[in-house]
């Protein structure tokens, strides 16, 4: 049984001119436990919306998103929040760290909505990403590469089954991007988490043994402005 199994997934938005536009229309998609897959797609192709739907940040209009035994598409918002906190780790392009919190607090807070804050585990995961000496630093006191490592640590702290990474290297220089990517892949492998990464960067996609074109999965791609 796959970890993630999507069928007939659709999401539409109403544009400012009142027109209903389908952004995501994925008939079938699956991801095995521990699998690492990269999806290629241009800006505006609906990749982020697709990840938001899987994470339950957005509610699907129709279709199913089976995460293990639970269908994210059928759950109410509070249940989606809980499932996201417990099963999914999310890495953003802009890191989305909380600026008023230290590295350790960012990780602890991420854990607290899931199984619960565990200081030892949070410290261990920060040490794993090479920030054991920056536990009490604030994001503004870190380089962009270090900030992304905090984001990786936060995503991994709950030992998620699935990690979603949305252009995780988009804000990093080549060296940091390469390191961050390697770190994400290694930590996912160590934790047995599946990784679904979306990017438009060929250098990133080239690292993955398994990559697909999101436009080929998404029937709505032709309607979306690229």
């Amino acid at each position, binding site marked *: 049984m796959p970890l993630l199994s999507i069928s007939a997934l659709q999401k539409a938005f109403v544009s400012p001119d009142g027109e209903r536009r389908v952004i995501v229309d994925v008939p079938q998609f699956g991801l095995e436990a521990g699998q690492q897959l990269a999806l290629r797609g241009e800006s505006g192709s609906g990749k982020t919306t697709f990840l938001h739907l899987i994470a339950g*940040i957005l509610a699907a209009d129709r279709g199913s998103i089976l995460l293990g035994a639970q269908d994210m598409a059928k759950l109410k918002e*509070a249940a989606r*929040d809980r499932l996201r906190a417990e099963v999914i780790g*999310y890495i953003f*392009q802009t890191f989305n760290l909380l600026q008023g919190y230290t590295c350790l607090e960012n990780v602890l807070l991420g854990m607290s*909505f899931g199984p619960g804050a565990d200081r030892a585990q949070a410290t261990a995961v920060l040490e794993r990403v090479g920030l054991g000496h920056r536990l009490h630093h604030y994001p503004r006191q870190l380089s962009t590469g270090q900030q992304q490592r905090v984001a990786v640590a936060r995503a991994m702290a709950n030992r998620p089954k699935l990690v979603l990474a949305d252009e995780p290297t988009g804000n990093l220089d080549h060296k940091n991007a390469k390191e961050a990517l390697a770190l994400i892949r290694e930590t996912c492998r160590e934790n047995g988490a599946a990784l679904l990464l979306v990017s438009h960067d060929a250098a990133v996609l080239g690292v993955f043994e398994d990559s697909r074109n999101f436009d080929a999965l998404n029937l709505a791609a032709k309607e979306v402005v690229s």
Partner: protein
Amino acid sequence: MTLALIVLRSLRQHLLSTVITALSIALAGGLLISVWVVKQQSQATFTQVNIGFDAVLGARGSKLQLVLNSIFHLEASPGNVSQADYQYIKHHPAVKLAIPIAVGDNLRGYRIVGTIPELFTDVQYAPGKHFALESGGKMFDPDAKEAILGNFAAAQLGLKVGDTFHPFHGLAYNPKEQHADIYTVTGILEPSNTPADKVVWIPIHGLQTMSGHDPNAATDVSAVLIQLRSPSAGFRLDMMYNKQGNRLTFAYPIGAIVADLFSKIGWFNQVLTLIAYLVALVSAAGVLVSIYNSMAARRRDIAILRSLGARRRTVFGAVVLEAAAIGLLGMIVAFGAYLVIATVVAAVIRAQTGVVLTPWTYDPVMLWAPAAMIALCAAGGIVPAWVAYRTDVASTLAPSS
């Protein structure tokens, strides 16, 4: 732990607005508690002040003026009581004790009151409490130009035993109205926390015969302080002087007459209380405005929290809790503001009346005002909390790809 951490970090991130808003709440809370406590305490204290007497006999006029003049040493005397009238009431079978007083002079603004030593030796100004002189002092000689000073008056005038002074004519101080007589201070009263503390006491004969006073009124007194043998005697004398007679006024019971004053100025208390409530309401609205204005800056953090799995009700609760926390901080400081305000007000009341209020004494308002204020602040947080609740995570966390 999570909510507490979110609230603490948010308060710290918006430190300036947190401090300013908490200070406005502190002032409002301090004002609210001050108005309430001063109102309650002043009413309770003033209506209990009778320095050991049941009634006052004075010239025909207002009972309230008579009480204010002879018990609180405020206002002007409504007129004189003849020696014959004084002797009559003194020997009336219903009267246990009658102490005459005479007013009309001052010492640099502090009222000089003529009386007899029995006021200090035979009267309990409060249950079980007699006036007492500080060590080294002695009671004035009724036939000498001697004085004993209330504790507050002595401190304010800077006089001690052995010092001398010239009285000044009238109840208001006028340096040009100095009497030729010279009085010597023979004693300082220990604090009694009554209006007697702000009086310069001299023998009644001395005040009656002060140089420049009308010799024809030399045996008159300003009022007679009366202890009755029974409460029913008060009503009989009230009937005799106030209903059947028309020359004198019998003010009885003293507490009820002062209470009547408070009921007459009840509207003023209500206005003060209303103002305090409005200030509290405005400061709670300040919490709303303060947090609401920062919502644009907070929206991204809220979206991040939501993306990490925080539920809508969690971020809603965090904002309401933050508003309540600002209220709590404000009310902690409010007690400091209250003590400053109430201490100043109590000092003014003591200087004006001799009556001592005790701001440190517990009053239920010290519990319900903070509770109400914190609840009001939490209510003020509901609108920004609703904004937080409705934050759209996906659009706030853009860019999208």
